[in-house]
């Protein structure tokens, strides 16, 4: 391939044609000679350029990064040829990987190796693959270039932002309050037996353990604590309703934030957390993971999830939960209060689920609906918008009512407080010993 310099040289050749004509040469002959000369130069230059196909490329560096943070993946280029390469290297990633698209310009001596760091600031969650590396090698005269594409696969997994981490200290302190307060207030704050201690005035007399009192000769009080080693199942609905953009992000992302915060708190509380993500088929399952590795596993599992444009199969979800969880547990379904999706999908199978488990439906509230219902009635046409919004809200109320009648708690909060409120609901249940 020619370069701009080749074109400039050709343009400069016009001086030769004019000059030759003045000196008495045929312009056509001068033209032909110049063209042949130029072609020869280009061919010679091309032959002397380092062969870009033979370059050896490899990658190293980060494989995961949290959304919103930057990382680096290093591209190593080795020149195995006997010619020094005047190179232009473009390390292309998918646009959402946030790689700088500026090519590297470098001179690589024969046999030398260079490391090119590519800074990545992903703009979207999920797996962000590297597309290809294009190497362009220029001849020593700069009149011809050779170019080759190399596939150097690398995938960067972009984890959810987990911005709800900021609520974690507060929730943990509340958890400690719940756990600690029960020791003082005694009965009612849990159902699991904790310890026996001496009675102090002010304690609930109903908690006195008469048998122990008789044994010790002192009034003993039975203390309770919230249940430990309970099970929490987070169900992420990745169907069509999860694609709805609420605020700045899809509903699915808000649900993820909430599920992660809930899992972090529940793990601290000593509960077992499982996760199922499904639409018309199961997308991700995390189960039977204990201790510290839980959160990384969860984050890794939800990172590549994307909303699918299908109706969620709640029957599949129900059977999946019933199959996996034999003991009674808390099932938190992260979905949307959509009359169609829930009324026809979830309601028929809900009794089965609610009979075995305690079910919490957590839905991100769409502020756009409230805004629509509260449309200022400035023009006659606004009435229709207000009516449509009001009707949508009423439909949600109705579906929420139907769900509640099945013994299900419905949480409907806007995205900004969603994660916090869902965890609060869990803590409330824990505090009241209803898990």
């Amino acid at each position: 391939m020619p370069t701009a310099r080749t074109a400039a040289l050709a343009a400069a050749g016009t001086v030769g044609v004019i000059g030759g004509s003045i000196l008495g040469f045929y312009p056509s002959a001068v033209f032909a000679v110049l063209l042949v000369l130029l072609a020869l130069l280009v061919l010679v230059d091309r032959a002397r350029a380092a062969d870009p196909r033979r370059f050896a490329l490899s990658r190293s560096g980060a494989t995961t990064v949290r959304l919103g943070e930057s990382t680096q993946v290093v591209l190593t280029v080795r020149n195995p040829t006997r010619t020094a390469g005047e190179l232009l290297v473009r390390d292309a990633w998918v646009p959402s990987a946030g790689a700088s698209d500026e090519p590297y310009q470098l001179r690589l001596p024969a046999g030398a190796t260079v490391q090119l760091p590519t800074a990545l600031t992903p703009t979207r969650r999920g797996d962000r693959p590297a597309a290809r590396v294009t190497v362009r090698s220029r001849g020593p005269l700069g009149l011809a270039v050779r170019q080759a594409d190399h596939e150097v696969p690398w995938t960067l997994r972009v984890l959810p932002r987990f911005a709800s981490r900021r609520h974690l200290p507060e929730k943990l302190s509340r958890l400690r309050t719940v756990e600690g307060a029960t020791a003082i207030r005694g009965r009612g704050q849990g159902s699991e037996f904790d310890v026996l201690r001496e009675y102090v005035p002010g304690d609930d007399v109903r908690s006195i353990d008469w048998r122990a009192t008789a044994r010790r000769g002192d009034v003993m009080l039975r203390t309770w604590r919230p249940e430990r080693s309970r099970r929490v199942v987070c169900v992420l609905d990745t169907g069509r309703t999860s694609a709805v953009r609420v605020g700045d992000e899809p509903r699915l992302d808000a649900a993820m934030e909430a599920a992660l915060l809930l899992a972090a708190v529940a793990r601290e509380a000593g509960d077992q957390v499982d996760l199922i993500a499904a639409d018309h088929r199961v997308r991700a399952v995390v189960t039977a993971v204990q201790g510290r590795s839980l959160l990384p596993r969860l984050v890794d599992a939800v990172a590549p999830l994307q909303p699918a444009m299908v109706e969620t199969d709640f029957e599949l979800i129900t059977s999946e939960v019933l199959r996996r969880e034999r003991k009674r547990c808390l099932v938190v379904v992260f979905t949307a209060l959509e009359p169609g999706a829930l009324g026809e999908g979830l309601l028929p199978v809900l009794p089965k689920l609610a009979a075995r488990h305690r079910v919490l439906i957590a839905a991100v509230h769409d502020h756009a609906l409230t805004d629509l219902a509260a449309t200022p009635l400035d023009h006659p046409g606004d009435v229709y918008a207000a009516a449509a919004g009001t009707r949508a809200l009423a439909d949600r109320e109705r579906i929420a009512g139907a769900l509640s009648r099945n013994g299900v708690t419905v949480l409907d909060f806007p995205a900004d407080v969603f994660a916090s409120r869902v965890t609060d609901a869990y803590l409330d249940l824990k505090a009241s010993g209803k898990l």
Partner: protein
Amino acid sequence: MTPAKKRRRLRLVLPFVPVVAVVAVALTAHAFEQTDPAEAGYLAPTSPAAQGGRDLAELLRGRGVTILTDTRTGDALARMDRLGSDVTLFVPAPRFVHPDYREVVDLAPKGATVVLVEPGSELRDFVPPLGVADRRWATAVTGPGPGCPLTSATPAAVARTRYLKLKDSLNEPVFCYEQGLARLEYNGVEFIAVGSDDPFRADRLAEHDNSRFAADLLSRHRTLIWLDLHALENPPPPGPSVALPPPSPGASPRPGGVYERPNTEPGAGSDDDSDDSPPQSSDRFTPPSPFPDWLFWTVVLLLVAGVLLALARGRRLGAPVVEPLPVEVRGAETALGRARLYLRARARGPALEVLRANARTRLAGALGLPAAADRQQLGAALEARLPGRRAELDDLLYGPEPSSEGELHARATELKTLVETVTGARINEGVHR
């Protein structure tokens, strides 16, 4: 190749397929319909083929014209010389007349007629003052134009090649059929150039007024010499170029010889030097170019430079990267769609009923009534809160459908005010469960 790439390639190619097909069919059909003077039957006086001339010959005989056939121009010219002026020379394939003969056809007896069928650039060899203006893709059927002296025919398929006057001559040329037919008396001989062979072909003779046109042109004299050529004829035999005196009765012409006669055309005589020079160059004068000779090659070189620059700049450093984007749906899309449906259907009744139902629920809640409170209960409770407005409020909450947009708007505003008054809160603001 991935399916997506294949699809993209198909998308690029498909629109051109019908175009290419149409062009190919048109070209094939045109080539098929095109006559070829090199074929043996082409406008031959005895050929019964579709392109043959037997029908035309019959037609002319019917008009009392004697038809004589010659297969060499030399013979034909000699015969013309013998027969005198009352003769027509019909040349169906002027380009097969040897260039040496073309120059001397005008030496035929004065008053004779030469009919050339669709002459191209060779027309200048026959009649220097005439030239080809343009050539159409297909023959146009046109009227003869006002006062055409050559034929009484009505519209005929004549105009494919059109002719024009190149330079002045003693006589002004006559053009008919939108310049598809040109007539010029040159050196005393009447030359007629016909822009298409359609009127003479057997298969087109019956179309339009072709037959009358052909017959009119060719029956101007009692004798017709039909020059039947199907390949470029041999050059005239070499021999001294003898300048013959104007043929007189009794003078024996030399068959196959070359005749020369002093040119009586003033246009031709004015440039005497051209008479001495070889005839080929006499009418190929090119004026000196106003541009220097290096200009063309400089421009070509600049174009080459431009192409090189385009190639250099156009080469991408790797193809653009594609990425499937996740689906995102705008919030409240269904509700907004429903709002537009209400608006389009002017669904005043349902829209107001939705607002009324919502207001009733809220009022019942604010007044401490069960959600399923009936009309009487709600009316009574409202009467207690807002005395004296019972009938009005009842109409507002349970009244008939509004009959106009304005009424709907007024009702909706009143409902909103009522709910806000009773509940003491702005409607639908920050209400989350």
